[in-house]
């Protein structure tokens, strides 16, 4: 009799156990996950009225309005392999083949029989002639995730700055070029570093030591140790940054971003490195999807921030950046494949500026073509007026896999 009661009880218990197991138990994660991408870009850039820096012996161009054509083919593979969400390995590279046409020694009035002048001229024109190939490792690193910690070793692109065109707080970032803030050809290279991150709730701590040993001398980098504390609180994404460049300056800074309402985003950076540098910016989005970005930037005139064309005695500089753009021009066939953007960056001290236009057209899932135009304006001694061409027009095709 007792056995008869036990059977339904046992069956009930078994059914309940099966239901509990089937209900919310998360299945084990995939052992490994792999992501890859490949991009190929063919870019042709025309520099109009190019004025290359010439030695004194070369008096004048026979045709002053020489146009230089630079053709680049860029191949950009990348992959990431993650094992059990714990170990990761990633690498990306850019292979570049570039050739120049339109400028040669024959374009110049070199005194006849002056071999030294001809040789000096040839050396001066070397960056604008011939064909070159280059392979750059953008990123190559291994990562370990352990609880709340992440560890990274290798070359990584890290961006701590919040500014769009200017970022004094991007102490580990690749150089930000205000006329090309998005690195449209994707040629930026990371820094070699050891980095540790701790993330817990809204708090995050990062500690990085970056070496400049393998970087080219022209990059003007130092070994850097940097620390960042980041927190998201009441909608403010805020970071405190501190660190030191070996044989350079100690620095400290703060960044923030905040969205207000439906359409406004504000961001800013303040950094102290010998003197203070500040960026304040805003983004506004209209109901039809047009984005406007404005930034004001004031760096001190010290070696870390100074552009080559700026005199050390010129004093503190002030810059303004304005951008307007829309992706998917209209939600209509034939129109939504278009993205348009225009921007201007101006040095408010010497009133020189560069205007940039971009148009992109997508074809299917893998191809796109683009037009890019840069027009510098300003006096010969000004920052953007010293640009050695009157206009740079680029047209290209991109294939993405």
């Amino acid at each position, binding site marked *: 009799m007792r056995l008869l009661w036990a059977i339904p009880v046992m069956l009930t218990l078994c059914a309940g156990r099966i239901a509990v197991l089937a209900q919310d138990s998360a299945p084990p994660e995939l052992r490994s996950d792999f992501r890859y991408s490949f991009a190929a870009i063919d870019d042709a850039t025309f520099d109009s009225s190019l004025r290359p820096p010439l030695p004194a012996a070369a008096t004048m161009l026979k045709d002053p309005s020489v146009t230089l054509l630079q053709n680049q083919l860029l191949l950009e593979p990348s992959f990431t392999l993650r094992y059990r969400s714990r170990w990761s390995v990633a690498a990306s590279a850019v292979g570049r083949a570039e050739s120049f046409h339109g400028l040669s020694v024959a374009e110049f009035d070199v005194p006849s029989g002056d071999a030294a002048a001809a040789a000096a001229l040839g050396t001066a024109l070397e960056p604008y002639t011939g064909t070159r190939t280059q392979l750059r490792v953008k990123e190559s690193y291994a990562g370990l995730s352990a609880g709340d910690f992440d560890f990274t070793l290798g070359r990584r692109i890290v961006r701590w700055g919040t500014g769009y065109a200017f970022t004094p707080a991007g102490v580990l970032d690749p150089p930000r070029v205000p006329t090309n803030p998005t690195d449209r050809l994707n040629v930026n290279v990371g820094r070699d570093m050891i980095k540790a991150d701790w993330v817990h709730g809204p708090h995050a701590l990062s500690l990085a030591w970056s070496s400049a040993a393998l970087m080219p001398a022209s990059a003007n980098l130092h070994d850097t140790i940097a620390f960042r504390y980041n927190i998201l609180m009441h909608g403010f*994404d805020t970071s405190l940054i501190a660190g030191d460049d070996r044989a350079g300056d100690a620095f400290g800074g703060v960044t923030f971003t905040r969205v207000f*309402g439906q359409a406004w985003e504000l961001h800013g950076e303040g950094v102290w490195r010998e003197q203070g540098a500040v960026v304040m910016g805003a983004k506004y*989005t209209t109901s039809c999807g047009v984005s406007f970005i404005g930034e004001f930037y004031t760096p001190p005139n010290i070696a870390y921030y100074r552009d080559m064309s700026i005199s050390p005695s010129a004093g503190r500089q002030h810059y303004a950046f304005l951008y307007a753009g829309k992706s998917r021009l209209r939600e209509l066939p034939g129109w939504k494949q278009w993205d348009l953007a225009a921007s201007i960056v101006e040095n408010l001290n010497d009133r020189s500026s560069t205007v940039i236009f971009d148009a992109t057209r997508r074809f299917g899932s893998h191809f796109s073509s683009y037009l890019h135009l840069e027009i510098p304006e300003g006096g010969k001694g000004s920052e953007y007026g010293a640009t050695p061409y009157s206009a740079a027009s680029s047209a290209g095709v991109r294939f993405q896999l």
Partner: protein
Amino acid sequence: MSNINCVLRTVLLLLVVGFLLTCALVCRAATLAVPDAEALLKRSDAYRNGWPSYVLRVKITHYESGKADEDKLYEVSQKGTERTYVEFLSPREKGEHLLMLGDDMWVYLPDTSRPVRITPLERLNGDASNGDVARTNFSVDYSAVYLRTEKIGAENCYVLDLTAKRKGSTYQRILYWLRVEDARPVRAEFYLTSGKHIKSATFDEYVTVNGRSRLLRWTLYDEIRHNSNSVLEYSNIAPRELPDKLFYQGRTDRF
């Protein structure tokens, strides 16, 4: 005479008690007939969520005049009701990621290699917006009021009026049809702050995953351009333990 009075008083008393009882029963029946809109909405969310944390893939195919125009693929990781992480897998958008934490949203673009804070208006971009993909908990974003019951095809449906209760909501107002028997979504209409009817949706196909009925396919119709629609298809739906680090806005290690 006194006997007749007693009888009359008794009859009157019975009539009064009977009347009061009838009124009470009618009131109770009326209360029972009006469904709890908030409970229905929460129950309907289970068809698009269902687990504390999970991963799925979303394929969006856009049609123009009945012909497939473009398609996109996303992997969506969701933890709780406030945290969603979307990885863009289509060749054109490869390397892009989207993170939503409550009302805050970041886009990670390979060109900029850092999280870019975006505004609510930037979410409404494209035929199926980021919000259609990433925000699937209507009970968190909207307050619900029961409007009526009506028949859609062969289905008896409750009609709920949803009003946005937070700025992170993709739409200002939604009319939502839920099947009476199990609160399964049948249809929806989406309205902007201006009151413009911008999209409609039909919830077309369901599948059972781990004993739970889950939405498999739904269609968004453009109410501005009536020959345009997007089909969202879910696949690889699975509950999964997701680390909090995945939802950290400053993380640049996006896969």
